[in-house]
């Protein structure tokens, strides 16, 4: 009897978790800005020495942190994202032609990965109708409204940050650190999770699981994270 891909998922190190990553792969990386980033996996990919990566991420880093480390390391060939903003590392490399940047509406980015994970090869969406996002895409009027056909966006690997994982890979996320992490986990052939807490089977009630371990293939426990701020906005105590 062979062993399936859902046995023994917990690995001892980031390096072991990332062993399957190869040059030229498409990597989906969870996070919104610097929140919910798989920080140790991001650093580990640089140490692994792969290159020519296509990266799917909402922002591809910022303030020199997160995926900006990959941009600076020169291991990225293409970025598919929704927003560059003040990510100067990306602006610079886009301008020089070092990196190709494909900009997609954020909801379309999420839905294309949701489709990939759900076995839907293509779907119609109203987002971007009548805009430059239409360019090169099939359009159709349905019930009097204009829609674009968007394609599923699968990844070779997803790098995901979770607050809690059990040994099967059932995940819970914390607040808005959830963002793209669960949907990316569904959309990749291999999903690697970096969790703050690792717990035994049964420690999470079945109804409290945010994402089933069916979408998770490797788990590495990383207790310490930087969790960088972008804009620390506060109010004074009364």
């Amino acid at each position, binding site marked *: *009897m062979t062993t*399936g891909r859902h046995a023994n998922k917990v690995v001892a190190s980031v390096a072991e978790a990332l062993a399957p990553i190869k040059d030229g792969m498409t990597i989906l990386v969870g996070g919104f800005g610097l929140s919910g980033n798989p920080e140790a996996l991001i650093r580990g990919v640089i140490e692994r020495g792969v290159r020519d990566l296509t990266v799917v991420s909402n922002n591809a880093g910022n303030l020199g942190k997160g995926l900006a480390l990959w941009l600076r390391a020169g291991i990225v060939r293409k970025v598919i994202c929704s927003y560059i903003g003040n990510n100067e590392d990306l602006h610079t490399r886009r301008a020089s032609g070092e990196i190709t940047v494909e900009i997609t509406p954020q909801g379309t980015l999420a839905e294309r990965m949701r489709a990939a*994970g759900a076995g839907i090869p293509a779907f119609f969406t109203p987002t971007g109708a009548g805009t430059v996002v239409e360019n090169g895409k099939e359009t159709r009027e349905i019930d009097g409204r204009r829609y674009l056909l968007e394609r599923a966006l699968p990844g070779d690997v997803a790098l995901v940050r979770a607050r809690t994982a059990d040994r099967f890979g059932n995940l819970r996320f914390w607040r808005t650190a959830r963002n793209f992490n669960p949907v990316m986990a569904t959309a990749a052939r291999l999903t690697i999770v970096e969790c703050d807490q690792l717990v035994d089977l049964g420690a999470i009630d*079945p109804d409290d*699981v945010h994402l089933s*371990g069916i979408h998770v293939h490797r788990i590495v426990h990383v207790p310490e994270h930087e969790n960088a701020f972008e804009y620390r906005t506060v109010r004074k105590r009364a």
Partner: protein
Amino acid sequence: MTPSTPPFTPQPTLWSTEDMARRAAREIAAGSIVNLGIGLPTQVADYLPEGHAWLHSENGLLGIGPFPYEGDEDPNLINAGKQTITVVPGGATFDSASSFAMIRGGHVDLAILGAMQVSATGDLANWAVPGGKVMGIGGAMDLASGCRHVIAMMQHVTKKQEHKLVRACDYPLTAARVVSLVVTDLGVFAPTGDGFRVVELAPGVTRDYAQARTGAPLS
């Protein structure tokens, strides 16, 4: 010995449904995600070591456990056959859209499904009898077309001795070219495109015996 006595022919010992379930269970890799169809395939769970595989129920659960102890039944914890069940540690619940996204998206490694006909090309027919009462499709088409591998389980022939392993299905299809293995009371057979490869035969079942009951060439 009287002249009227026929020569002794050993009768094959056909597999019981328990034998079939036990044999199908051997196809399940440790640490795989498996959906067991309603009816006979559900029995396959009885032959899996504890913790061996993760059982998926399309109504919204990964990690089906054994039936509950008497008195512990919960009508809101059921499998796709509407039987009361339990959840194993590490199980998780989810809604129907997420559950079928798992199936359609190829995240379920294996479905073991009941069948009415299987063709030499791996076509599966298991949801409707021509001219019969329409029972519905349920999750059958999603499971058959979405899971990474599909094993069919069925009696080798109908009660009227009609073939069920056939060149081409004449029952309405559930999905085309999806079945990789068929477990019957005669043995285990793999669709090859123009026939079926004999993987294993039940005790005393000869190739000729099986061929006479199969609507496509055995190899």
